[in-house]
């Protein structure tokens, strides 16, 4: 035998003394999320719904009826798809209404369900009344509610993922709601640019371009803050989605900004590219979380750094004082 601990394939056991990276047979310390494709897709549709509601109401104020109407319909459609995606992801879909049996401020998913309920009900009501051309005061009231529920709907998903033990999500908590908000604005502007005639789509194009620029800067800031664990955004599936998101959003934005004013075809293609880019961005964040949960080095390294900086409290060595028995028991 070699000088290492017995291990079947002849490799030194990673638990061996002196090995710098310590783990239990390389197994993950935390569990990867159980969420499937519906969740990142919902991050996109929820953001699209939320920001579209704001765009619609703002356009209404300026008397831009075509934009107001289109953004309202886009938002309502996205609001209708969202709960279907969420319910489909549940292990027990028939119990979806259990989400609404409590109001719980410590659970972003619980509060998010309530926000989605308010946003979905108000935006679909406003869209239906618009279609039927009925009850104008009710429609206006519903639009205002949707515009106020929209921004929390677009940003809470950043808190949802950040409030987990997944290193790359929790350590990105300062930027994630902002990134999701910027991405939501970009997709809402881009979607409206696709369906509104160029002469009325100026605000939508501006929102799309500003959203993409803000999101790019915020992603850069987050990756810097994350340090070494931020490398998951360059690797594997997260890396692919991240690069696709950048490429699509930049190409779409350039097309929208340069030719969207004159050419309807450019506006449609540019808007579609930006929307695709924003969908990819949500997938990049989603996959990055899985990758950082799967590899124990991200969990151990970030916690070890914290231990060295703050002094650990989780372990008590002989002679070290710990709080006397009696507290909390």
């Amino acid at each position, binding site marked *: 035998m070699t*000088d290492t*601990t017995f291990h079947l394939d002849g490799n030194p056991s990673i638990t*061996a*003394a002196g090995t710098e990276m*310590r783990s239990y*047979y390389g*197994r993950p310390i*935390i*569990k*990867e*999320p*159980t*969420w499937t494709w519906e969740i990142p897709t919902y991050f996109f549709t929820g953001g699209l719904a*939320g920001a579209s509601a*704001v765009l619609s109401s703002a*356009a209404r*104020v*300026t008397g831009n009826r075509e934009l107001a109407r289109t953004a309202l319909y886009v938002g309502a459609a996205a609001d209708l798809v969202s709960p279907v995606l969420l319910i489909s992801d*549940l*292990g027990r879909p028939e*119990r979806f209404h*259990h989400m609404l*049996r*409590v109001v*719980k401020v*410590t*659970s972003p*998913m619980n509060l998010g*369900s309530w926000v989605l309920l308010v946003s979905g009900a108000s935006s679909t009501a406003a869209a239906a009344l618009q279609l039927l051309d009925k009850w104008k005061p009710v429609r206006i009231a519903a639009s205002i509610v949707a515009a106020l529920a929209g*921004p929390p709907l677009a940003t*809470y998903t950043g*808190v949802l993922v950040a*409030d*987990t*033990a997944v290193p790359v*999500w*929790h350590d990105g*908590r300062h930027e994630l*709601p*902002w990134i999701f*908000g910027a991405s939501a*604005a970009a997709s809402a*502007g881009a979607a409206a640019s696709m369906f509104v005639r160029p002469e009325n789509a*100026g605000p939508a194009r*501006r*929102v799309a371009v*500003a959203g993409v620029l803000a999101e790019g800067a915020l992603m850069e800031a987050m990756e810097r803050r994350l340090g070494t664990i931020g490398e998951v955004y360059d690797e594997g599936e997260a890396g692919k989605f991240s690069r696709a998101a950048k490429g699509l959003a930049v190409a779409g934005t350039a097309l929208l900004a340069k030719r969207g004013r004159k050419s309807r075809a450019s506006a449609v293609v540019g808007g579609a590219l930006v929307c695709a880019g924003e969908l990819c961005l949500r997938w990049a964040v989603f996959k990055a979380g899985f990758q950082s949960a799967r590899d*124990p080095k991200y*969990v151990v390294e970030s916690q070890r750094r914290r*231990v060295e900086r703050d002094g*650990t409290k*989780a*372990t008590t060595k*002989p*002679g070290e004082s*710990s*709080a006397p*028995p009696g507290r*909390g*028991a």
Partner: protein
Amino acid sequence: MNGPLGALMEPTGVPAGWEAYGDGKKERVGFFTDTSVCIGCKACEVACKEWNVIPEDGRVWTGESYDHTSQLDANSWRHVAFVEQRKPLFANGDSAELDVDTGGDGGTGLRWLMESDVCKHCTHAACLDVCPTGSLFRTEFGTVVVQQDICNGCGYCVPACPFGVLDKRHLAATTDPPPAFLGRKEDGRVWKCTLCYDRLKGGHEPACAKACPTKSIQFGPLEELRERADARLAKLDAEGWNGPRLYGRDPDDGVGGFGAFFLLLDEPEVYGLPPDPVVTTRDLPEMWTNMLAAAGALLAGVTALTLLGGRR
């Protein structure tokens, strides 16, 4: 600050929700798992499976020492970890008087660590905080339990747990199956250690502790267990053991102390445990404030870009 968010901002050593029982509140109980006397018999795993009617989830030969359970998950609520190390058992370099065949290099310097892992029943439990349905709750004994008739399988608790304890069950449901019209076969709910809530109610100790032949798993009032653990740590230190430490005993750690804590003989990560677990909801007040700012910026930004500037 009062209410649930206040409890997050000023963590105490007292489990959130436990006080709400008033007169119905029972003494907080837990486990002290002393790995220095664990012999790796897995009686705890078997007793847990038998008592809680946990389904068999496949037999995989891992080749990782004697461990074929590999991790805690929906179908394993006790997991005995086996670590083979080239480290002496005693700090002075001596090993136990064991006839271990190490390939002819003297039979010394090798130790075999075993640790029976379990849900930590945290004082501040992230799984309980983030559960959107209220399915996860704090019992009158200060423990954390999933109500299976409420859980809708959203899976939020799974990545929220800093120890990777909870998981969704993908096997067929043994009780309360999903309705046939959905065409779903799997259970779809999240399962974990209940600290044998049913046995506690009946005045019995949990099945794993009952079955443990070496008292490696000790059950009792948490306060008493902490005193016992302190004494045990001092004794092992006096006897010159290599690397003894308590893990999760201190109410000042990132989760407010574990309801089920451990005596380990090496760093936590060697056993697959996080070195500095933190309840992520600790940062939630800050995260909500930050989110509201982002939402405000989204509202203001989109409105400004629409109002300022022309239609074209």
